[in-house]
């Protein structure tokens, strides 16, 4: 028995009225903006039946340089039984750049969070092995941040010429 999207959003709003800041749907899929402290509780709630958002499609970060809360974490969840997608967003400021890790709930969050750490420098509380995923040891900075110079390169060996 599939659930309606409206019912799920209504239940969410009832349970997390204090933490959810806004629910919008600019391009069809709902975007839920919430306070970062509530991440684990909201995802645990959505994981349970009958909502069953058991699949973490993607987890990434966006840099809005110049805004007061500079970084924005984006979580894409999918419910196989309800055939629904949901997008969760939390804003992080630069001086408190950390959020709870989703690794206890989703195994694939491990590498996705390592990527977000590598590219943006977001710290994930409770991650078992938070190390760079793409860039090599000794790489300084986080290359997808807007203030990383466009063509700055950090070669590992001495280059010719």
């Amino acid at each position, binding site marked *: 028995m599939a659930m309606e999207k409206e019912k799920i959003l209504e239940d969410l709003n009832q349970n997390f009225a204090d933490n959810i800041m806004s629910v919008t749907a600019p391009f069809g899929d709902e975007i839920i903006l919430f306070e970062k402290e509530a991440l684990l509780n909201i995802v645990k709630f959505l994981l349970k039946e009958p909502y069953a958002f058991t699949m973490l499609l993607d987890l990434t970060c966006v840099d809005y340089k110049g805004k007061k809360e500079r970084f924005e974490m984006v979580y894409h969840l999918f419910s196989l039984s309800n055939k629904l997608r949901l997008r969760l967003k939390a804003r992080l400021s630069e001086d408190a750049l950390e959020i709870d890790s989703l690794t206890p709930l989703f195994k694939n969050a491990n590498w996705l969070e390592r990527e977000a750490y590598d590219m943006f420098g977001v710290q994930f509380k409770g991650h078992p092995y938070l190390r760079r995923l*793409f*860039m*090599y040891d000794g790489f300084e900075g986080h*290359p997808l941040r807007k203030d*990383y110079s*466009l*063509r*700055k*390169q*950090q*070669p*590992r*060996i001495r*280059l*010719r*010429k």
Partner: protein
Amino acid sequence: MKGGFITTRLNSMLGWGRKFSLFQYPFITACCGMEYMSVACAHYDLDRFGMGWTRFTPRQADMLLVVGTITHKEAPVLKTVYDQMTEPKWVVAFGSCAVSGGIYDNYAVVQGIDRIIPVDVYIPGCPPRPETILNALIKLQEKIQKEGHEWRWKRKKY
């Protein structure tokens, strides 16, 4: 070419022998590999030019084909592979990424493999047409024919 009749004939014979027995080492990292496969297989048939013998160890190869994007993370690996090859050896930069970094002008990609190892022939294109590749490899053969045995004391500089 300086030298008397015997040495020039010897050089010519060495060049002839080398250019038709190029053992290749394909260092394939990206989509240009598809184009390489089509050239190496029966349709375009690299074996016509004596280059069909693919060796998957650099120690037995003469020609290093760098096919695809080389990132800074990968650069030491490419350098090691090149150093493991025995002289005489030739390098072909295959496709825009290997030639100049291509469209990837960013934090991760080496802007042309000639920043790491010396290159003999550059093949432009994204990816290059098989005809372009055959043309470039024939150009390399011409180069090898003229080279003689001077590689023994004229080592390529880093």
